């Protein structure tokens, strides 16, 4: 057993770990990044789906990348370029009547008018309120130091929204089922039901993000989210981070009740005064840290194993049929969710371990933005189904694939026939690949509370308030650790 001295060890080479490593190295520290698997990138991964087809697994669009990370680490120079900067949000409804939400407010009003005149009239005010509140709340989600108090009008709305469910909020503004359900889909992350209190704030959080200078949008980088991971890995190597793959960390070493390094599964010990874990708080404190070292009550308060999860399906398509009904851009982010009520039923069913009767899902067609991801004239589609039970049997998996294909076929007639191959990943398979998402949504704590643990020297660099590739937690974790965080 040899001990090599580093200034910091980062566990896990996902976006959070890579970002933390880059910032630590940038400030002159000697950093070791230990990744258990043989590839870097965590949830930002693309897989090959037969000859010439490349589909994103894990994340299939980016909406939360911190612009300061992109700028300060010069990710553009390391190969990160965006092909689609503001993806539209298209809620596909019955009979070709879709809710198409684009950046331009007037265009959106025109689109919604075909669903409901009243909703079209209400959209500008809703959009303005949502985005203004998001901007006002942005400092508390982007900055480590305590934010200035909010203006009174925003404080009132924020206090109210802490308890309001996304469903109640949207119900009070709009009448069209497909519009409400489409907007509410973003409030179903991490096992939330749109009927739970606080889910309205998830919509505000999403609107507080900024991609490519645009507020509250999703974007597609060239090469998919995997390109973000590649750019970060490149930046890390350029900064002198020592990256080791196939190096699983067994546990954190402690000395005098503080973190003092890590022990690898191979038996090697690495000494370092700072340890950053990009695993969830639960995995870090429950598995990596010595048993009970974080405090028994803290341990008991950690989130439970999630009962519901997301499934991912990637499809190789021989051709892309047009959408039924209203014209929608193929580069959009598509959501299939009929009504808010069916989302409640879906949540309940998934919670009970059944596939919901009405599936709610999101999908993108990366080849619409980047044709080179598939052979000429062919396409890939990436589908995210949420919620599904965390424990899915093989029969359920087959059933899910069939039902998703049928659901997409209902919106694009002929799609079922053009599927060349499909691969489905259940929540358990994704967890085995990436580690459990584990981190519950936590938009109310401040960064100190999310990143620091009760063990001095141990930081959580993947502790995003809402799970999504972002890098913000890594950047702030590095700053807190180096600044002698309290």
């Amino acid at each position, binding site marked *: 057993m040899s001990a090599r001295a580093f200034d910091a060890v980062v566990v896990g080479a996902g976006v959070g770990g890579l970002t933390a490593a880059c910032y630590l190295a940038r400030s002159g520290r000697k950093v070791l990044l230990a990744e258990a698997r043989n590839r870097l990138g965590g949830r930002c991964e693309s897989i090959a789906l037969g000859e010439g087809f490349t589909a994103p697994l894990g994340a299939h669009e980016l909406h939360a990348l911190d612009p300061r990370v992109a700028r300060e680490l010069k990710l553009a120079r390391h190969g990160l370029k965006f092909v689609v900067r503001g993806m539209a949000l298209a809620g596909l409804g019955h009979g070709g009547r879709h809710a198409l939400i684009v950046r331009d407010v007037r265009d959106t009003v025109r689109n919604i008018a075909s669903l409901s005149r009243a909703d079209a009239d209400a959209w500008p005010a809703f959009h303005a309120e949502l985005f203004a509140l998001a901007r006002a709340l942005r400092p508390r989600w982007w900055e480590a130091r305590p934010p200035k108090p909010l203006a*009174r009008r925003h404080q*009132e709305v924020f*206090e*109210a929204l802490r*308890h*309001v*469910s996304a469903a*109640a909020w949207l119900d*009070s503004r709009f009448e069209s089922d497909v519009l409400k359900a489409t907007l509410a889909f973003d409030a179903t992350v991490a096992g*939330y*039901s749109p*009927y*739970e*209190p*606080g889910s309205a704030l998830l919509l505000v959080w999403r609107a507080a993000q900024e991609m490519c200078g645009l507020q509250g949008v999703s974007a597609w980088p060239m090469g998919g989210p995997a390109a973000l991971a590649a750019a970060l890995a490149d930046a890390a190597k350029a900064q002198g981070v020592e990256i080791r793959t196939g190096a699983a960390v067994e546990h954190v070493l402690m000395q005098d009740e503080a973190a003092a390094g890590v022990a690898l599964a191979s038996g090697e010990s690495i000494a370092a005064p700072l340890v950053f874990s990009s695993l969830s708080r639960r995995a870090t404190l429950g598995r990596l840290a010595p048993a009970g070292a974080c405090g028994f009550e803290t341990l008991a308060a950690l989130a439970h194993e999630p009962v519901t999860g997301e499934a991912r399906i990637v499809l190789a398509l021989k051709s892309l049929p047009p959408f039924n009904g209203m014209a929608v851009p193929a580069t959009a982010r598509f959501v299939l969710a009929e009504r808010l*009520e*069916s989302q*409640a*039923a879906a*949540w*309940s*069913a998934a*919670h*009970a371990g059944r596939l919901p009767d009405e599936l709610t899902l999101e999908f993108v067609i990366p080849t619409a933005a980047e044709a080179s991801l598939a052979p000429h004239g062919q396409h890939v589609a990436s589908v995210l189904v949420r919620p599904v039970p965390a424990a899915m049997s093989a029969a359920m998996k087959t059933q899910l694939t069939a039902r998703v294909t049928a659901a997409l076929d209902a919106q694009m007639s002929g799609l079922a026939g053009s599927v060349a191959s499909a691969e489905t990943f259940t929540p358990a398979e994704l967890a085995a690949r990436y580690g459990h998402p584990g981190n519950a949504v936590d938009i109310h704590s401040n960064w100190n509370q999310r990143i620091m643990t009760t063990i001095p020297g141990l930081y959580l660099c993947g502790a995003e308030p809402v799970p999504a590739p972002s890098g913000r937690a890594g950047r702030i974790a590095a700053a807190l650790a180096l600044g002698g965080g309290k």
Partner: protein
Amino acid sequence: MRALSCAEGRGLRYDACVIGAGADGLSAAAMLARAGLKTVVVERGEQPGGRCALREFHPGFRAAPFTDSIAAIPPCVFRALDLARHGLVLPPPQASLSMWPDRAHWIRPHRPSPAAALAQEMSRLSDAAIARGRDDAAAPPHRPLFGRAPAAAPWPGEDLLAQPLAERARAAGDTDAMAHVLAAALEGHAIDPDLRGSAAALLAPAARCLIVPGLAEALAAAATGAGAELMAGAEATEVRLLKDRVAALVLADGGAIETRAVLSTLDLKRTFLTLFAWDALPKPLAGRVQAFRMEGACARLLIALDRPPALAPEAMRAGIRVAPDARVFADAAAAWRAGMAPERPPMTLRVVSAVAPALAPAGKAVLTATLGAIPHRLFDGAWTNERREKLRDTALAMIDAVLPGTRDAVLAAELLVPADIEEGLGATGGDVWGGEIAADQMFAMRPGLGAAAPRTPVGGLYLAGGSTASGLLGAGVSGTLAAEAIAADLKNGRRG
């Protein structure tokens, strides 16, 4: 008891006019009259009592039609109204019994068990929240409904607003105990116990008081004994304003009562949306009132039995949960939201005549059933006679399954669906409790941010009852708080 006829009421001037002679209205009237204010209570029904009034649903058989119990009357209110002197004896807290065909599970209030401990903890939180409501109402400067909300300390029990009910119920013990706790908390509701925030149902209300004969009478006697006047058979239809302040209350027969203050114990929506013209309310207020969610989920079955069911005496006096199943509540809530009537609605039975023998003739019994997750409006239309019959038969079959032979003893069975409760009680959507139990509609958010005080943005208009935080947690509390506020405002000439 001096009751005015409408004719006498016309043209008289009062200091305060209370709408609704329920527990909160009558307690408010008693306190107002004691404070020396000329007070009248205006009640739509022929008898006072609101939810506490009993109905003779079959000759010789009486029951409280809308709910078996109201929120418990806290001791401070009981003493302030001197209800004991008016002859009221409240029954002790009821035990709860879950019955399945092959087994049973008890939760007794004074016998130690995790479930009973949970109930006691909730009771303590509820008491603390009621005390907090009093403190907030008394704190200067007074804060009107929907007004600015200063940063306030969290309310007792506020952490329940982030927890799923199922998690608290699971701590009660095995699956039977968990199902029992869920059934008790969700009686008459349609709430998914796995959703975060559903634990608020444990507080809504935590302690209940069975409605017994004499309750409505004692409350009315407390009011009239203090000098308030009671006008029955008079429906309030409009609050007339003069220079943005309350000036008079208009009744259905056209008569008007001049008054300086109006206290409405109607629910939030009924108060603002029926007593005022749409454009008479400030815009933001109207919007907030519209956004307040109220929709009944409870149906009631009142059954007259030829003989009491075959149960041990202790079980006869308990609240009986019919074969509760933890999974059913989540599915029922989802179905309710979609407007579908459940196949097997969650059900609680009470042999109310075992607690209060005066409700039924000698040797006979009154059985009430409270069904949860019953939609106000079905997704494919209204509650036709056919659908009512079907629900009635389903319920009777379920009752017969746990109490064999009951069906044969049925002399009469009256079903009330949410729409009937709406009509009979004047409660929007048939919601007996005055508003949905949800995290954004509890405590300081009930009925809206900053709504700790009974004062409203309309000068001279006050609100009490289930739509307020105190009103949900304890009967009579919001009424006494409103009375204190009104008395203080009128005496100081403050603009309410």
